[in-house]
């Protein structure tokens, strides 16, 4: 009785946890055989670039979920048939959508993945250049007030340090 009521209370959490545990903790190892090392390499590359749609966030190579196994088998089959990387990815995208590929396609939104950082770099250097050009009027490094304040703190500190030193000498 006791245990049952606890389970009923906690079960949603366990289901969540177990879902991710069962698929992630245990790496999936298959023993496929290939015609050539290129094929084997292609298979390994592909299984790292394709995402298992059922799992939390894993490629089909790392996951032990049933669907990941199916997709690995299909990938193996397609690679064995001599399909190239693009063809296999297209095959998967046609069925599972763009979610299945870790390398996102160009869309009006994903273009910002590339544009965003680039724009920032250009803007950043534009600002830096502007700053340097603006510095023609003569100015002091630190203004007087600031300097005094810093001096005060440093003064206190060195005084304290000296006291300490003397103390240790004694």
């Amino acid at each position, binding site marked *: 009785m006791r245990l049952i009521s606890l389970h009923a209370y906690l079960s949603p959490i366990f289901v969540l946890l177990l879902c991710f545990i069962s698929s992630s903790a245990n790496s999936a190892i298959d023993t496929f055989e290939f015609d050539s090392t290129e094929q084997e390499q292609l298979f390994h590359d592909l299984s790292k670039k394709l995402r298992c*749609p059922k799992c939390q966030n894993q490629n089909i190579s790392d996951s032990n979920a049933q*669907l990941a196994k*199916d997709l690995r088998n299909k990938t193996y089959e397609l690679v064995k048939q001599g399909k190239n990387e693009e063809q296999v990815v297209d095959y998967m995208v*046609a069925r*599972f959508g*763009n*979610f299945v590929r870790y390398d996102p396609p160009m869309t009006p939104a994903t273009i910002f993945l590339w544009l965003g950082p680039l724009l920032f770099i250009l803007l950043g250097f534009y600002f830096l250049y502007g700053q340097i050009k603006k510095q023609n009027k003569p100015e002091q490094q630190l203004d007087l007030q600031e300097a005094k304040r810093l001096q005060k703190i440093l003064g206190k500190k060195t005084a304290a340090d000296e006291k300490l030193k003397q103390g240790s000498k004694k």
Partner: protein
Amino acid sequence: MANTRKIITLSVPLIIFFVVCFFLFKGLYSDPRKLDSALIGKSVPEFTLQDIYNPEKQYDASIFKGQKMLLNVWATWCPTCYAEHKFLNELAGQGIYIIGMNYKDNRPKAIKWLTDLKDPYQISLFDKNGMLGLDLGVYGAPETYLIDSKGIIQYRHVGALNEKNWRNTVLPLFNEME
């Protein structure tokens, strides 16, 4: 004046932050694991599958033409399917045409399930190796597809159908279809 301009420049991070927050807020109420089907607007893929009761009987994609219907993907190993089954029977009772696809399952078990729990399906396909499942992009049972009379997939519902989501989301879409 120069100061105002400076304030505006310095407000850029704040503005970006609020935009991000807007999306984060929206994200709280949508499940990132629910995926739209890649086949929406396309016909049901070609296939040849056996009937679940009768291995002699074979079906192909033509069964999806002629009237609008639901295609329900299920399996006996799927606990959520069990929860959903009763509601599917109700829908069948209301006269909704449902085709069932038994996905990666065991035939005797599936037949027992349908006999014990009542069979809501007009046609039951037996997809033992998950061939059609893969072509449909099934990533977890149960899934329910809305297919119009021309055999075009219009919507996919992931997870169990129940009174609430049927009334709020699926039925309006079903009524809209031809």
